[in-house]
């Protein structure tokens, strides 16, 4: 006991020593194991691969970065960016009414229920969610069946006949990939949007309508601007998660690559670590820019 006492006394007297003791284990873990691995890996982007031997040539060069701009690689980047943007916009449109309803009209028990209704899909298994959509989008699945029952098969076929986003079936098309991305990341948009809407004072809305604003004007000039930081905070998640995902397009979608898949196959079967590292830099840089803009628009206060 006296040993414990003297240890604790000395720790109390030397708060800096105590702080170091507290910080050292997590810092070692994240600083060395995580950041260390990350920097070593990313540094490989400055090396290049020897085209003949397939070994990494350890000389500093920017040629690997230049390779990103080769047409087939650049396509992957553009495709991922377009997908991430589309998924983010769709999430905003779907999340907003729900968030607004939950923030304005739900009370007490209902509020808790709404919260759980969002948290459950958010935390339930990622793979299970993707799998559920494989069932739904399959050619023999529920959507085709529903279209048949409603005599809308022609509409589904017309949708799938659209070039680029269509395909032989929903589960082998960009359209399918898009729907699954929206589904999986939607709760990440709902929660911050709802949090921002909760903070809009009802008196502001009343004041706007008292002063003669139509509901549409109130929405455009009062509600939306006040909710914007929350929406941007949500978009950080939907955008970043879509950019980095490589499982969803692998399971639902056609064979064209997204960023995550390019990185995955380059480091695996192709063994081209430098190009994989250069590809990894892309989402990190994009997210860096995105976060800088988001910070300027006040999104971090809404998190």
């Amino acid at each position, binding site marked *: 006991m006296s040993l414990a006492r003297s240890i*604790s*006394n000395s*720790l*109390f007297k030397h*708060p800096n020593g105590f702080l170091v003791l*507290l*910080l050292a284990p*997590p*810092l070692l*873990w*994240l600083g060395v*194991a*995580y950041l*260390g691995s*990350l920097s*070593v*890996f*990313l540094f490989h982007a400055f090396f290049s691969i020897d085209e003949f031997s397939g070994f990494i040539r350890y000389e500093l060069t920017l040629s690997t970065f230049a390779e990103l701009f080769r047409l087939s690689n650049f396509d992957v980047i553009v495709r991922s960016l377009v997908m991430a943007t589309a998924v983010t916009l769709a999430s905003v449109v*779907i*999340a907003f*009414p*729900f968030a*607004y*309803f939950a923030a*304005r*009209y739900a009370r007490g028990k*209902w509020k808790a229920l709404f*919260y*759980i*209704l969002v948290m*459950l*899909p958010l*935390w*339930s*298994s*990622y*793979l*299970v*969610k*993707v*799998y*559920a959509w494989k069932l739904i989008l*399959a050619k*023999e*699945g*529920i959507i085709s*069946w529903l279209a048949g029952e409603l005599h809308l098969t022609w509409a589904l076929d017309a949708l799938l006949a659209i070039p680029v986003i269509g395909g032989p079936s929903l589960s082998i098309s960009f359209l399918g990939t898009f729907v699954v991305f929206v589904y999986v990341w*939607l709760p990440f948009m709902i929660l911050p949007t709802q949090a921002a809407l909760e903070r809009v004072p009802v008196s502001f809305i009343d004041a706007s309508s008292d002063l003669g604003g139509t509901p549409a004007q109130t929405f455009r000039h009062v509600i939306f601007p006040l909710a914007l930081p929350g929406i941007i905070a949500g978009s950080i998640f939907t955008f*970043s998660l879509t*950019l*980095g995902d*490589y499982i969803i397009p692998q*399971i639902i979608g056609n064979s064209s690559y997204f960023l*995550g898949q390019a*990185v995955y196959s380059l*480091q695996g079967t192709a063994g081209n670590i430098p190009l994989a590292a250069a590809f*990894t830099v892309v*989402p*990190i840089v994009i*997210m860096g820019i995105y976060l800088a803009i988001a910070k300027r628009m006040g999104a971090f206060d809404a998190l």
Partner: protein
Amino acid sequence: MRSEGSPLLLKIAALACVAFLHVPLLLIFLYAFTTEEKSFQFPPPGYTTKWFGVVWERQDIWDAIGLSVKVAAIATFLAVVLGTCAAAAISRAKFFGRDHISLLFILPIALPGIVTGIALRSTFGIMDIPFSTWTIVLGHTTFCMVVVYNNVLARFRRTSGSMIEASMDLGADGFQTFRYVVLPQIASALLAGGMLAFALSFDEVIVTTFTAGQQSTLPIWMLNELIRPRQRPITNVVAIFVIAVTFIPIVAAYYLTREGEHTGGTGK
């Protein structure tokens, strides 16, 4: 529902959103009972409960569950210890570089999982570390730590440091203070963070694909079934199991952190 005045259109849009979020998960349950094993035919041609028996007999599934539980348990334990240390340091003291360090602590969740996974994989390659349970644990602890850190940090911010000082003034040593003052204050946050970390680890697939090698956790097993399906309803039965395992800690964590808002030495 006390929702007088909510426009009908808004109500419909909100309900549609709820349906969009939940109907897919319900279908997982339906398909677990289908007699069709080669395709995802809807409506199912017939219903059976035999797949639950088939899963019970499958050793590969039990092995995958065993590995997942083992990894999640170790990763959660490490994450609770490391995350609490980090939260205590960040919440109590002001020191040089504090903001940068707190940024570092959320980085593993802010960056896409593939970045964490590939970075660790390439380090294992360079350092010639063979894949093992511990390589998976290493990856999982990295992001589980963040969840615990966030939960405990939020609690520390709501409790006041004066109680610790009072305890020390009244003659308790540091260990007694930790045991009787600090721990009761943060216990429910620790439990909640730990359960979320467990659920997160149990379900993780992206980082795991890079750090597992040939080993198969339950999500890896599912991923293989998704890419190369064999008996499809079996995957559904496993999916129901996964939903159940992650569902309970999430709801429990929700109620634990809610109750926590009313306790702890926050009185002014």
